[in-house]
């Protein structure tokens, strides 16, 4: 099992993560992501950052604010409104030898880039037998909870995990966000980097009617200023527990934590961090320990990544399971605007699933 994500405990196992640099400060996830790009632009002259509105303005979520002023217009620049063009150009730059970090303004808008991601970036190494590669990082804010309606709220991660040759990464807090983004940029394979936008400014637990908590009030908002990595392809136990395992990621990590507190179920929350390639050992170890498993994600249910997780748990842990694996997900509808909170799988729904799992058998 891997180290939990708390900075104090992340003092990494050998070969797992680089040493944490001295000097930390409180950051939002936005600041942490910006710091990751800042560090990499500084360290590696082959890193470039571009996308819609990311240059002078610094991005609609401000993730690249100040980077153009610091590194110049040839390294941080605005792109036309063309997701296919942004990723396609990044593939060409990757083939040249650069490490482009591109932003798709909302994950909901990546679809025009599908061909460049699925057929090109993901397969370039394979089809050319390593002659050409595309070490690109495609950042995109995902998830709902901001009244974004059906075109600013989607969680398309399963569309990426189905594609061989790419990594799908999704952090749940500022510390992981920076360390995972640096690891993604340094990785020689293409990475889809999903950013749960509801977590940009604070650890949202799903109680939308309560006051917002800021990252400055949360220990995971403590982020080293310098270079460090959080390992890809490795999950983290976000909350250790003995009653049941929650397999989740992104926004739902905090929702699951709230549900555990509110139900009194001693849930072990596994934050997957990289969805694919999956840290199967971490998943299996936790489920074998607890004997119960629920899978939680915000994305729609059918053929969602939860289906893959449930199947893997069944294949690897069947004889350790006390109860069937249950999924708690968004409904199989577009993300509605007015009924956003009826759609969002909040702590009540997650908590109810926890209770069912504990009452059964």
């Amino acid at each position, binding site marked *: 099992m891997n180290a939990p994500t708390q900075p104090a405990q992340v003092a990494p196992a050998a070969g797992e993560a680089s040493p944490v640099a001295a000097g930390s400060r409180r950051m939002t996830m936005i600041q942490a992501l910006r710091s990751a790009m800042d560090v990499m632009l500084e360290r590696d002259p082959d890193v470039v950052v571009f996308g819609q509105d990311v240059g002078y303005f610094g991005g609609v979520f401000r993730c690249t604010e100040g980077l153009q002023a610091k590194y110049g217009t040839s390294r941080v620049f605005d792109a036309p409104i063309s997701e*296919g063009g942004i990723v*396609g150009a990044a593939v*060409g*730059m990757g083939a040249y030898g650069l490490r482009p970090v591109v932003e798709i303004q909302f994950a909901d808008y990546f679809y025009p880039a599908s061909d460049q991601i699925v057929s090109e970036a993901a397969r370039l*190494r*394979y089809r050319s*037998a*390593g002659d050409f590669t595309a070490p690109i990082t495609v950042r995109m804010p995902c998830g709902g909870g901001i009244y974004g309606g059906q075109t600013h709220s989607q969680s398309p991660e399963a569309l990426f995990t189905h594609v061989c040759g790419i990594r799908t990464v999704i952090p749940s807090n500022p510390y992981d966000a920076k360390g995972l983004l640096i690891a993604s940029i340094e990785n020689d394979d293409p990475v889809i980097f999903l950013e749960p936008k509801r977590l940009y400014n604070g650890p949202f637990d799903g109680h939308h009617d309560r006051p917002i908590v800021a990252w400055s009030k949360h220990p995971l908002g403590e982020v080293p200023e310098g270079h460090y990595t959080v390992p890809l392809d490795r999950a983290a136990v976000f909350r250790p527990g003995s009653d049941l395992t929650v397999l989740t990621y992104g926004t739902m990590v905090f929702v699951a934590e709230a549900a555990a507190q509110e139900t009194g179920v001693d849930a072990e929350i596994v934050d997957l961090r990289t969805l694919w390639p999956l840290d*199967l050992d971490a998943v299996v170890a936790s489920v074998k320990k607890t004997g119960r498993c629920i899978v939680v994600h915000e994305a729609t249910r059918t053929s969602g990544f939860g289906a893959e997780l449930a199947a893997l748990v069944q294949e690897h842990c069947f004889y350790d399971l006390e109860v069937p694996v249950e999924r708690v997900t968004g409904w199989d509808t577009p993300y509605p605007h007015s009924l956003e909170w009826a759609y969002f799988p909040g702590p009540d729904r997650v908590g109810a699933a926890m209770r069912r799992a504990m009452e059964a058998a």
Partner: protein
Amino acid sequence: MSQHEPLRLHVPEPTGRPGCQTDFSYLRLSPAGEVRRPPLNAAPADTTDLAYTLVRVLDDEGRAVGPWNPQAEPGLLRRGMRAMLKTRVFDARMLIAQRQKKISFYMQCLGEEAIATAHALALDAGDMSFPTYRQQGLLLARDDVSMVDMMCQLMSNGGDPLKGRQLPVMYSLKRAGFFSISGNLATQFIQAVGWAMASAIKGDTRIASGWIGDGATAEADFHTALTFAHVYRAPVILNVVNNQWAISTFQAIAGGESTTFAARGVGCGIASLRVDGNDFLAVLAASRWAAERARSNLGPTLIEWLTYRAAAHSTSDDPSKYRPADDWSHFPLGDPVARLKRHLISIGAWSDEEHAATQKELEAEVAAAQKEAERHGTLIDGHTPPLATMFEDVYKEMPPHLHDQLRQASA
């Protein structure tokens, strides 16, 4: 009640179909030597006339005329002649190999040989081409590319540098400036622009050359490439090979009716040329002009190469089902090999005897390469790469789930 006639949908049709001869007047040709050659630093808008006319150097008598005459050394043209012949011989031989089931599939570039071979001579070492599947001439024009390696790729055998992963003709050869060919059309066009942008970002001097067919210009990636190339003034040549046919689809269905593909470039603020693609000298001159512009920070050039796909789209295609069987013989821009041959003979740099001898020599060279390639196996041998190669290179390091699947597949 409406005062108008019922609306009608216009679906373009070629003038020729099986059983009736094509009226090629739709091509709107210019006489050789007539089209002006603008200065290298011409503003894109000042190339508008060149997007609707046709740059030609070789006239019907094989003379090199007009401002686009590249004044090439006879030695270079003889080299070009040999590259075109080599490409044609290679194609013919591999077509037979496909019929013999030694390879699964093949695509010839018959009739289009001048474009890739002359273009290759205009590029510098280190430049990168992003080709389609019909630019084998880019490789065959080079003396440092092994025909044996190319054939091993076609045969997906143990000598295939791509480990049998790609359909025949989808070569990749970075050291020869030849980007990995996709099968998804147009994707490489914007990638070429991205590569060129990278070269500019790094303050390099190398340029990119992107390739696309008339049919695939309808894809979004084509338009995206033009926008990005213009916006960032990318050092790239954007080649549109208009060979009239996308499998059975006439170029008018891609949007070529009553306009030109070169005109797309001007509309995007890109200097654009429409060039006789069967005229080796015109291809050389236009490619040099575009390459020099790109290398001088003057930005991209779009070139529409007018040509004709003389052979089937691929070995899976039968063009007699949708176009006149003898169409190529009526194509007004003729055969690029015959046209350069006539010119070289007229300037005393070639002869019928030398032509025949070169052809024979190349046939022997290609046959010897094939013999060598077949030593690594052909498709009919059932010779396939080791099973593990299926799971390699999906990622740089093989992740656990692929190790697991390799183990299952090996069981």
